[in-house]
C-alpha cells in the first residue's frame, strides 16, 4: 500500500490583530492509495481548514503535506474537488458540457477526446444527454452530479469532497452516496471527504479520521471493516455498522 497523502505534523493558526486562533495542532495522518477516507468532527473544529491545506488554497503555519511524496506549494496536480455549494461552484454562464470541459482544456486532449470524456463522465453520474442544459436548470441533486462529473472527467489522482451532500435532501443524499460507491468501484480514486453525517461517513469509507479539540488534532482513526459492496438497505441494518457509528459519534461528541 503506497501513501497517497502524508500529513506530517501540520498546524494551522489564524492571526488577527487581536488574537491568534490555533485551529489545528500537530495533525498527522497518512492516506493510503485508493482508499476512501472521511474526516469527521464537531462543527468548527477545522475540517474545512484541513481541506484548504490539502488543496493548496492555504499554507500550514507548521508541518508539511506531501502528495505522492511531493510537498504541495499551490494547488497540486491531479486534484479534483467537489464542494458543498454547487450553485457557487458550477459556472452559471456555461452549459453542463462547457462546465466539465473547462478544467479539461489544460489536458493534452483533442476536441474529440474531450467530448468523449465529457460524455463518459455524464453517463457515469447518470446525466446522459444533459450536455446543453445550464446548471441552474437542473435540480440540486443533478447539479451536484454535474460537479462530480466535472471532478471525474479530469481523471484525478485525488478527489477531495467538502460536505458534498449537505445541501441536498435526504433521499437525494442516499442516491448520491451510492453514486460515490459506484465511482469508487469503477475508478478507485483516492478520496478524502469531509462530512457532518456520521452515518454517511461509516457507509462510504475505508477509514474515518476523527478531528477533535481546540486546537484540533487527530483524536482517532477508525477502520471501517464492513465489506464491500455496501447497500443502503442492508449495510445500515448491520450490527457492525451500528457499533462503528456509535463509536465515532461518541468521539465526535466528546463522550468517549
Amino acid at each position, binding site marked *: 500500500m503506497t501513501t497517497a497523502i502524508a500529513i506530517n505534523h501540520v498546524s494551522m493558526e489564524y492571526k488577527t490583530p487581536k488574537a491568534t486562533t490555533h485551529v489545528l495542532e500537530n495533525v498527522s495522518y497518512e492516506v493510503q492509495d485508493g482508499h476512501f477516507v472521511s474526516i469527521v468532527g464537531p462543527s468548527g473544529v477545522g475540517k474545512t481548514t484541513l481541506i484548504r491545506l490539502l*488543496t*493548496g*488554497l492555504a499554507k500550514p503555519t507548521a508541518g508539511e503535506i506531501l502528495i505522492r511524496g511531493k510537498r504541495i506549494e*499551490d*494547488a497540486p*496536480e491531479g*486534484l*479534483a*474537488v467537489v*464542494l458543498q*455549494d454547487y*450553485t*457557487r*461552484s458550477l*459556472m*452559471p*454562464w*456555461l452549459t453542463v458540457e462547457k462546465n466539465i470541459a*473547462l*478544467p479539461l*482544456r*489544460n489536458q493534452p486532449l483533442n476536441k474529440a477526446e474531450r467530448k468523449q470524456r465529457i460524455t463518459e463522465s455524464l453517463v457515469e453520474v447518470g446525466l446522459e444527454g444533459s450536455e446543453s442544459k*445550464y446548471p*441552474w*436548470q437542473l435540480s440540486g441533486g443533478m447539479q451536484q452530479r454535474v460537479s462530480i462529473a466535472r471532478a471525474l472527467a*479530469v481523471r484525478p489522482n485525488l478527489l*477531495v469532497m467538502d460536505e458534498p451532500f449537505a445541501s441536498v435532501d435526504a433521499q437525494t443524499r442516499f442516491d448520491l452516496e451510492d453514486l460515490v460507491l459506484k465511482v469508487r468501484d469503477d475508478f478507485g480514486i483516492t478520496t478524502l471527504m469531509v462530512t457532518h453525517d456520521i452515518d454517511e461517513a461509516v457507509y462510504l469509507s475505508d477509514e474515518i479520521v476523527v478531528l477533535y479539540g481546540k486546537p484540533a488534532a487527530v483524536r482517532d482513526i477508525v477502520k471501517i471493516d464492513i465489506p464491500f459492496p455496501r447497500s443502503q438497505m442492508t449495510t445500515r441494518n448491520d450490527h457492525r455498522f451500528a457499533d462503528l457509528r456509535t463509536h465515532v459519534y461518541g468521539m465526535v461528541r466528546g463522550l468517549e
Partner: protein
Amino acid sequence: MTSLLNSRIIRFLVGIWLPLLLIWWWWTASADSVDPFFPPLSAIWEQFKFNWIWQLFPVHVVPSLRNLFVGYSIGIIAGVVFGALLGSSRRVSRYFEPLIDFFRSIPPVATVPVFILLFGLDANMRIAAVAVAATFPTLLSTMQGFRGTDSTLLDTGNVFRLTKFQMMWKLRIPSASPLIWSGFQVSLQIAFVVTIASEILGSGFGIGAFTVMSSDSFMILDAWTGVLLMGLIGFALNVIFDIIEKRSLHWYFGQKKLTR
C-alpha cells in the same frame, strides 16, 4: 401560445398607454396655440418630418451618433480594463481610489469647456469628452463586479489549476458581467448627455448643435424638432441596448427567473 401572446401584448399596452395619453393631450392642448414658444404639436411634427426624414439626418444625426459610439466604445473599454485591474487587487485600488472618487464626482457636462481648451472645437474634443465621461460608470461597476467574485468560484478555479488567463477571461469576467453590463448602461446614458452637451458648447454639426443654433436664431419649430429627436434617439439607444444586454446575459436572466 395565445396566453403568451396576450401577456406580451398586454405588457406592451401597459407600457405604452401613458406616453400615448400624454402625446394625445399635448396634441389637443396645443392645437390652437399662438404662443411662439409653444407651437402646436402638429406643426412640430410636420417640421420634424421635413427636417429629419431624411434631409438633415446625415448632416447632424450621423456626426452625433458617430462621436457618441466612438467615445462610448473607448470609454467602456477603458472602464473595463481599469475596473478589472482595480477590482482584482485591494492594494492597487487603495492607491487609486481617492483619485477616481475625485474625478468621477465632477459632473461630466461641466468638463466640456476643459476639453474645448485642450482639443479645440472639433470632433476629437467631443469624442474625448464622451470617452472620459463614459469611463467612470463602467469602471466603478466593473470594479465592484470583480471585488464581489464568489470565493467558492475562485477556489474551484484554483484547485482545478486554471491558468491566470483562464481565471480572468473564463471566470472573473463572466462572473462580473451582470455588473459590468449595468455599468455599460449608465455609461451609455452619460455618453449621450455629454455628446449633446459637447455640441451645445462647441459649434458645427450635431443634433445638440442644431437644436441650440435653432433656438438662438428663434427658429423655435426647428428647436422643438431637435428636442423631440433627442428624446427619440435616446429612447431607441436604450431599447437597442436592452436587446443586446438580454442576449449577452441570457444565462443570468434565465437563472434569476428560475431560482426565486
